[in-house]
């Protein structure tokens, strides 16, 4: 039938609807931007939602300081192109101020520290809604997330006591000091995101494509060698042809061996993948409920 939207068009329309609801229901929204593909897709959707006006909220990067150089350059170019405002909240500053203490040891990561920096920044700027790129297919605790996810005055998520979400009626009512996390990509899968990037021709950082990189194998994962990780004596640094399946903090984002040089190759690779994309994330492997525990505290 002619009057039938494809599933990707429906997902796009749903995400745009959510973004417009947030811009209208809240006083001061912000889009959490990590430089990863999901947040890049969100920026693209935000441009579409408010065009020809500019994106009516700032982007905020919670910066662990452990970035791939390519991510930062990409971020700055995107901000210039869209004319959006960029706020950088630094984990290093949280450490310097004594708000958090750096983890020790070879597996040290700033991933968990981000939560404090994020919640401090939300409080400082008085944001009342923060867009996240989380998807329900990513992880089992995320499968229970709402589109509009309530956070109490401590930024905590209470998964056992969530508001029912019916039809397309999104309840963003809250007390002063509380905020919402909003997930416009809730119903997207990893494959949907890649197909959408291909369909819309959305530029992504080149680390998503195959390149040569020095890596070290740890706990069955390949980690990119950088000044931010400590190489153990028993570990061997090798140069391999790899790409990032997700992009996050360098200390806990694994890379995968891959010859995928163009988006079509990535799509074939995702279709054949037998491991979830978060399978390459050390931050999720710390315990069975690592994601739920972090989310309860206020993580993305």
């Amino acid at each position, binding site marked *: 039938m002619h009057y039938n939207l494809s599933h990707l068009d429906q997902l796009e329309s749903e995400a745009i609807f959510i973004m417009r609801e947030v811009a209208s229901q809240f006083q001061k929204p912000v889009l959490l931007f990590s430089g990863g593909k999901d947040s890049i897709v969100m920026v693209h959707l935000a441009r*579409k939602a408010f065009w*020809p006006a500019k994106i009516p909220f700032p982007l905020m990067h919670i910066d662990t300081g452990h970035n791939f150089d390519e991510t930062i350059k990409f971020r700055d170019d995107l901000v210039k192109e869209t004319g959006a405002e960029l706020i950088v909240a630094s984990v290093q500053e949280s450490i310097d101020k004594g708000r958090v203490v750096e983890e020790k040891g070879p597996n040290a990561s700033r991933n968990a520290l981000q939560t404090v920096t994020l919640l401090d920044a939300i409080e400082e700027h008085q944001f009342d809604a923060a867009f996240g790129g989380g998807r329900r297919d990513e992880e089992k605790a995320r499968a*229970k997330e709402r589109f509009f996810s309530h956070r109490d005055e401590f930024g905590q998520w209470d998964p056992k006591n969530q508001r029912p979400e019916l039809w397309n009626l999104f309840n963003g009512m809250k007390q002063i000091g509380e905020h919402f996390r909003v997930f416009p990509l809730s119903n997207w899968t990893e494959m949907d995101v890649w197909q959408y990037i291909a369909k819309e021709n959305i530029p992504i950082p080149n680390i998503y494509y195959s390149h040569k990189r020095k890596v070290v194998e740890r706990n069955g994962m390949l980690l990119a060698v950088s000044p931010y990780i400590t190489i153990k004596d028993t570990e061997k640094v090798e140069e391999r042809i790899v790409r990032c399946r997700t992009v996050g903090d360098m200390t806990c984002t694994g890379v995968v061996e891959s010859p995928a040089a163009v988006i079509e190759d990535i799509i074939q690779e995702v279709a054949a993948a037998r491991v979830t994309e978060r399978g390459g994330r050390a931050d999720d492997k710390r315990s069975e409920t690592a994601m739920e525990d972090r989310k309860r505290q206020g993580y993305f």
Partner: protein
Amino acid sequence: MSETVSTEQYLNMDLLRFTTAGSVDDGKSTLIGRLLYDSKSIFEDQMNAVEEASRNMGDHTVNLALLTDGLKAEREQGITIDVAYRYFATPKRKFIIADTPGHIQYTRNMVTGASTANLAIILVDARHGVVEQTCRHAFIASLLQIKHLVLCVNKMDLVDYSEEAYNKIKEKFDDFSSKLEIQDIHYIPISALKGDNVVEKSENTPWYNGSTLLYTLENVHIASDYNFVDCRLPVQRVIRPQSDKFHDFRGYAGRVEGGIFKPGDDVLALPSGFTTKIKSIETYDQKLDEAFPPMSVCMTLEDEIDISRGDMIVKPNNQPEIGQDIDMMVCWLNDKKLIPGKKYAFKHTTKEGRCVVKEILYKVNINTLHKIEGETEMGLNEIGRIKIRTTTPLFFDSYKKNRSTGSIILIEEGTNETVGAGMII
């Protein structure tokens, strides 16, 4: 998903949202597990994690329910607390499953899952047949106006694939469902555990000539589930760039919730009542020749008239009902009871306001469908018919005519919790 994925094919897939219901131990998790597993939507690391968790919990077999029971409390107690959403795709369609738990808070969860579903799967155990819960699930599906229902008679392997057992259940459900308003009912004898008639047609049921479950899910006709007749655009936001390039641009952003709008069409704005013509329908990529549900668009009009969030753009010759006294079925979602005289906040399309509950007309016994009159309050998981009065007029259709302009939620003003799900009559 197949080994190679063509982008062209992927872009043409449509979307089916369905909900699954069944009483405890009807094999719902097993069925979902099988659909995910057979469509290669379960990944190795997920399967490994589930295997390990099953071992840790002392289970001898892999407990596929752990795929959907993601929360710590759910795993500890071995129950599903909340609606979980799962995704899988075949080359024809992408599917969103709203998996609603059968234990506590059942009605609340099923209503939530059903509110966005095109189709409901209800499972019955072939040994036990149609039970009270089956009727309750079917009633909720009907109340929420789910257009398609699939009754899966599960565990056929435990009744020796008996045609007689299947027919008995089918007859009994046929009888009950004649009192409901579901247009399209399918019956399928399956064994989720053994895989009979789930993805592959079973040799154990030669007497069954119908389709497998997956074939039904892939082919059920959903293109006409939206209302393409009555034009409705609830305005979400006015877009005014005020830039040099778009100095005078004023667009009305929203999602089309009914009908087909075209540039040049006469339209009427509510509540002002002013009429004008559509100048253009804009998206970031292109100007559109037409807009239909569920597209998110931005509309510009020939004349500058006063329109803001909560208003609605419709056709002069096809207007919704307008009023402050609203008669509706409501499902109560909260421990705090609904009491006549109490005030609540509400959300209806893009409109927000306050309302007072005037009267409870009756409650429904959802197992027998009997009406109970003379009630003075409604509690958690109860369904009934109420009258409310709103502070401002609503522009609405009956829920039967349009799920978007006919649905409303009630919000407790102290806690801001969503406490009631209303379907306007």
